[in-house]
């Protein structure tokens, strides 16, 4: 009698489960649910340029604590070739740029004896106040020690979004997480989400975000990143 009752209960639960599976849609991948599609390939970077009235290509700026992304106050890099030296231009690295969904980790060692960054996959090391800085994305963020996902950028009708939590600027023997969101998932200070545009026909893209520096000598500063170039889909 007891066994029969248990069997009935079990059967009932199975039936409920089956009903639920039919009636309630199964969780779908974020991309499918939001309609955003992960771009598989490399965001090939165009070198930064100050030849026009406004800088173009790939560059970054650093904003002092208390400033704003639009109006600064900006940190001037004397090594910038721009008239407005708050723009530090970057040129594509050995991988040509940012590989979507993959880590582009720091080399070992990550720094030269003078503290210059050696990471050169995403961008070529660029002088910042006489010391080279570089960019890397590591499974473990070297500043916070937290595990971070590989950068993922998605496209939805020409609008880019995603996360670059692992984005790390290396300079002067120091690592500065410059991701958005930050490795703990927050968006402190002036941190702004990744956004941008993507032309599916020409594959031209512009990707921007801002990331507050949390901790270290530049605590309270904000890095503003502007990546521009052409997306190169991965050949399947």
């Amino acid at each position, binding site marked *: 009698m007891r066994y029969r009752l248990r069997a009935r209960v079990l059967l009932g639960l199975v039936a409920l489960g089956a009903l639920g599976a039919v009636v309630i849609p199964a969780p779908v991948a974020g991309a499918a649910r939001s309609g955003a599609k992960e771009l598989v390939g490399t965001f090939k970077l165009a070198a930064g340029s100050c030849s026009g009235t406004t800088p173009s290509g790939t560059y970054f700026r650093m904003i002092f*604590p*208390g400033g704003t992304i639009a109006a600064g106050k900006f940190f001037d890099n004397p*090594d910038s070739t721009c008239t407005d030296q708050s723009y530090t231009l970057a040129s594509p690295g050995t991988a040509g740029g940012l590989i979507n969904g993959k880590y582009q980790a720091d080399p070992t060692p990550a720094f030269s004896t003078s*503290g210059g960054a050696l990471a050169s996959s995403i961008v070529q090391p660029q002088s910042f*106040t006489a010391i080279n800085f570089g960019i890397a994305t590591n499974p473990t963020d070297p500043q916070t020690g937290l595990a971070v996902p590989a950068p993922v950028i998605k496209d939805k009708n020409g609008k880019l979004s995603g996360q670059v939590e692992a984005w790390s600027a290396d300079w002067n023997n120091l690592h500065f997480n410059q991701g958005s969101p930050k490795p703990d998932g927050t968006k402190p200070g002036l941190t702004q989400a990744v956004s941008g545009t993507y032309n599916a026909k020409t594959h031209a893209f512009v990707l921007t975000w801002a990331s507050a520096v949390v901790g270290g000598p530049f605590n309270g500063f904000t890095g503003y990143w502007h990546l521009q170039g052409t997306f190169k889909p991965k050949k399947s």
Partner: protein
Amino acid sequence: MRQHLGRSITGHWVSVTGVLGRSTPGPRVDVVPPQSTEQSPRTWTLVVLAVLGIALIVMPAAFGMFARAPKGAVMLTEFRPFMTTSRLDGFQRDIKQINAGVQQSRHSVASYLDDGSADGSSGSFKADYPNFASFAAQWGAIDTHMTSLLESVQGNLGNYQAVAALPSFRLFPWFFVVPGVLVLLLVATMVIRPRRRRTVRWVLVAVGLGLVLAPAVFQMFQRAPKGGQMMSAFKTIETTSNVETIQGYFGAMAVGQGAIRLELVPALERTGLTRAEINTRFPALATLDQRWVHILNDMTPMIGAMSDNVVNYQAIAALPPFPLFPFFFVLPGLLIAGVALAAPGQKRQHQVSSEPSGPLSPDSSRN
């Protein structure tokens, strides 16, 4: 039949074989001449000891020590690489070298580039090298502030070392909690196991003396006041505002050095001077140019440590003043030892006859 009477901490009379309420009605019992030599702690002593134990346990929580003391430990650890004579001397040297390079640039180099202008203040040098001119105008204030800050830090090196020689700040809350728990357990033992109270009493005295001696053992009387001096000296250094000011200096110095490296030196080279001749003629400028990366390597982590420890400093500053800490051990220690010594009370040597011979009068047998 005879019963030995003791007193519980509530003041009720307790017999070994039963409990007799103070006003227990019933047959009269006689209090007979004492025969037992067992001692009983005074009630108040046990209460005071229990209160002291609880106070020791509660005190770290009341002062927020569990959250703040570890931050102090972090601060001391993160300052350690910089708090050495050689490192602090190095920072002073960095600032002096920047100062020498700036002064030489604004006078000798400016004069040279202006081709005879007295001190470069004629206007053309400033106009030709606005980045350097802007930095040079700020440098006096930067130099004064940074030199003063470094002197203050260097002046507190001994104080820092004294504090760093104390046991880890992480342990401090436990230095109160552990004796507190111990005191409570011992008091409980005295109540539950009266036969052991003589031994327990001496353990309590030992715990008290341990607390009294701890500051002496750890040299807290010398070190804690030094910690207090360090905290006072760092009060104006470890602030967000000060750190942001120094970050601003860093930006200004980077621009200034960039102007020397990328504008003045090339300008000197354009006059026909070789690098060697520049080094000979303008050694301070050359030294700054050559050592700039080293200066950045040296000073940037220090700014990072200063910035990262503003919160930690504030946490420690919110604790009671350092010089009081030894007394947080000594006073409870003295009280515990003193009260424990007073704990036995008078010898109580009671025997109670169960034979009715008159009304029970506990007062007559009290201390």
